[in-house]
């Protein structure tokens, strides 16, 4: 609360600095933004504390320049205005107010116009003008009303979002920012400053017209890349620069009369605010949708991996039983050897070495299984497709063996690496191998062959080709197998190939199948080679 009172006090002093020399109406009253943010972030039952704290701060801040009756009126009026604004905001766009959806920005902008307009009728400036007690030279009732409205609308549109968003901002997130983001943030701050200086800091004869438009590109940049927090902050920055320029008799606004100057500044800010905030919200929403889509895809990939692991469970049990058999037989052989006179220690040592090796083999089987079952965020790294193919064959060895399939593997030497998620690519290849084996159950045993070839495909791709001699794909509609829930198997979700294709496209590659001339089908998996310095891949861009 002390912090709140202090910030309110500082904001109020700042507001006093922004007043017309010839009027009681401020250009902006940023203290209201502090009050509004405080109310929105506090539960309603504690509002009275906020109101008391800010009232005291207000009284102290304006004591030297404002008569007591007027300060009291301001306190009551502001409290009424901001409290009702907060109430409406709680109800209409809903909390938390993050400016991350179009709906929130629209609703907020509308409220930020309507409520100040209503409130304007109750301000001392208007009421006194109404009774002809005090009317600034050259102003009418209407202009007084307009000024008060715009002054408050400016606060709500320009200042309140910044205060609110930064007050809610999880500061620890700043530490997680990558160096690239920080550089970009630095560049964007510099460009806003530079453009702002040109637009508002040059002589009026230069500044009128074109330079004013230059503030938009950096603002759009911020809106697109840094979300509502960045956009609102940059808008406030531009507004501050425009005030700074105008106060030094520079920039496009100084050509007008004083009153018009302030009015144009306010209109300029308001006109600038809503579209930029809206753009930020639209982009933000879009990115969230993409993130959600990506998260769903990851989840689905995990689910199908778990399903695959389930289908492979007997295969994996088989894989573990081999080393377990060897370990047990070795250990028992050693036990027998040790009971004899003249123990052959060399043989015992060899046995123990074998046991250790087989144990590691078993641990690898479990490790591969775990990589399938674990729910990990996708992470991209350089990998060799021949390793992935080897792992897939190791995981499916039991299935391959039981289906009586002979596997031929052909791996071209000196293959380039690809960039990808090792688990997801393993999943794709594994799925193709298992499908291939299962498609050959009706094939005569000697003809059950699964051919795998890993080779370079022109200068761009590494190709994994998996050919079986099974039932083949639906004639004329080969692509149907990639549709979700299309399945010819008795077990299985019918998602394997659909997920496989979406994984491969996320890697910038292609996956398709075609029927062989004689029997069975061939699947082609193309993955782009990693050209070390060719810039980020599609996957990288997505993971920004």
């Amino acid at each position, binding site marked *: 609360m002390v912090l709140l009172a202090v910030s309110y006090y500082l904001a109020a002093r700042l507001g006093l600095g922004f007043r017309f020399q010839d009027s009681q109406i401020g250009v902006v009253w940023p203290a209201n933004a502090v009050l509004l943010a405080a109310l929105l972030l506090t539960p309603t039952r504690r509002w009275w504390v906020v109101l008391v704290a800010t009232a005291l701060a207000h009284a102290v801040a304006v004591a030297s320049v404002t008569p007591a009756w007027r300060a009291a009126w301001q306190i009551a009026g502001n409290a009424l205005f901001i409290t009702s604004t907060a109430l409406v905001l709680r109800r209409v766009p809903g909390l938390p107010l993050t400016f991350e959806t179009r709906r929130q920005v629209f609703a907020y902008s509308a409220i930020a116009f309507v409520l100040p307009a209503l409130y304007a009728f109750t301000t001392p400036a208007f009421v006194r003008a109404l009774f002809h007690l005090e009317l600034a030279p050259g102003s009418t009732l209407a202009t007084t009303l307009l000024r008060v409205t715009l002054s408050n609308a400016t606060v709500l549109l320009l200042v309140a979002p910044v205060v609110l968003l930064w007050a809610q901002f999880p500061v620890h997130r700043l530490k997680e920012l990558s160096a690239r983001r920080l550089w970009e943030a630095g560049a964007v701050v510099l460009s806003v400053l530079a453009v702002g200086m040109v637009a508002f800091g040059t002589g009026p004869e230069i500044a009128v017209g074109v330079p004013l438009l230059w503030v938009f590109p950096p603002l759009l940049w911020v809106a697109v890349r840094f979300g509502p927090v960045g956009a609102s902050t940059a808008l406030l920055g531009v507004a501050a620069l425009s005030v700074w320029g105008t106060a030094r008799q520079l920039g496009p606004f100084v050509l007008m009369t004083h009153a018009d100057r302030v009015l144009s500044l306010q209109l300029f800010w308001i006109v600038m605010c809503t579209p930029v905030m809206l753009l930020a919200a639209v982009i933000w929403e879009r990115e969230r949708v993409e993130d959600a889509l990506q998260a769903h895809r990851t989840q689905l990939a995990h689910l199908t991996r778990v399903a695959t692991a389930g289908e492979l469970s*007997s295969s994996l*049990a*088989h*894989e573990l*039983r*081999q*080393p*377990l*058999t*060897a*370990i*047990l*037989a*070795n250990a*028992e*052989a050693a036990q*027998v*050897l040790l*009971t*004899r006179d003249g123990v052959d220690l060399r043989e015992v040592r060899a*046995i123990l070495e*074998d046991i250790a*090796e*087989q144990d590691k*083999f078993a641990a690898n089987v479990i490790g591969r299984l775990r990589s399938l079952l674990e729910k990990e965020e996708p992470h991209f790294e350089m990998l060799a497709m021949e390793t992935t193919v080897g792992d897939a064959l190791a995981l499916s060895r*039991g299935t391959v*063996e*039981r289906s*009586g399939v*002979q*596997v031929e593997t052909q791996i071209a030497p000196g293959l380039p690496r690809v960039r990808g998620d090792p688990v997801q690519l393993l999943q794709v290849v594994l799925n193709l191998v298992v499908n291939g084996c299962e498609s050959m159950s009706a094939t005569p045993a000697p003809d059950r062959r699964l051919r795998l070839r890993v080779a370079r495909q022109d200068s761009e791709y590494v190709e994994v080709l998996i050919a079986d001699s099974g039932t083949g794909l639906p004639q004329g509609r080969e692509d149907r197998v990639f549709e979700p829930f299309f399945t010819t198997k008795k077990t299985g979700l019918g998602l394997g190939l659909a997920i496989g294709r979406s994984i491969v496209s996320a890697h910038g590659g292609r996956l398709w199948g075609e029927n062989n001339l004689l029997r069975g089908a061939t699947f082609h998996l193309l993955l782009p080679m990693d050209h070390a310095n060719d810039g980020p891949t599609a996957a990288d861009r997505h993971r920004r």
Partner: protein
Amino acid sequence: MVLTKQSATPVIGVIDDDPSVLKSVSRLLRSAGFSVVPFASTEGFLETHQSWTLHCLVLDIHFEGMGGLDLEAYLADTGVHFPIVFITAHDDAALRERIEATGQAYLRKPFDETALLDAIHRVLLPTHPGARPDHN
């Protein structure tokens, strides 16, 4: 390939395409007092088994190419019958019944020494009653 000679230590052919299983099971049988001839594939067995006088086979069921059951059938076609202990890493109750019905043994991996030796004795006894190896 008929058991003509009664030998004190029966000779056992072990056939498994997993090198670690082949090596360790052979080792175990040797330590139990058998003579052992290891084969890494069914095809390799067919090529060279006649160089030895084998009394019993410990035979994996699943191979690339000719499987253990195919080998048994092939040998039967040529009039050769071995007592066989089939070993497999797969669970298959129906197959176990079928194999045991023919008087052969079926062991699921992993198996311990007792199970393996019992199975060998079981399949050996009808044809080779004196074949108790002298293991301690």
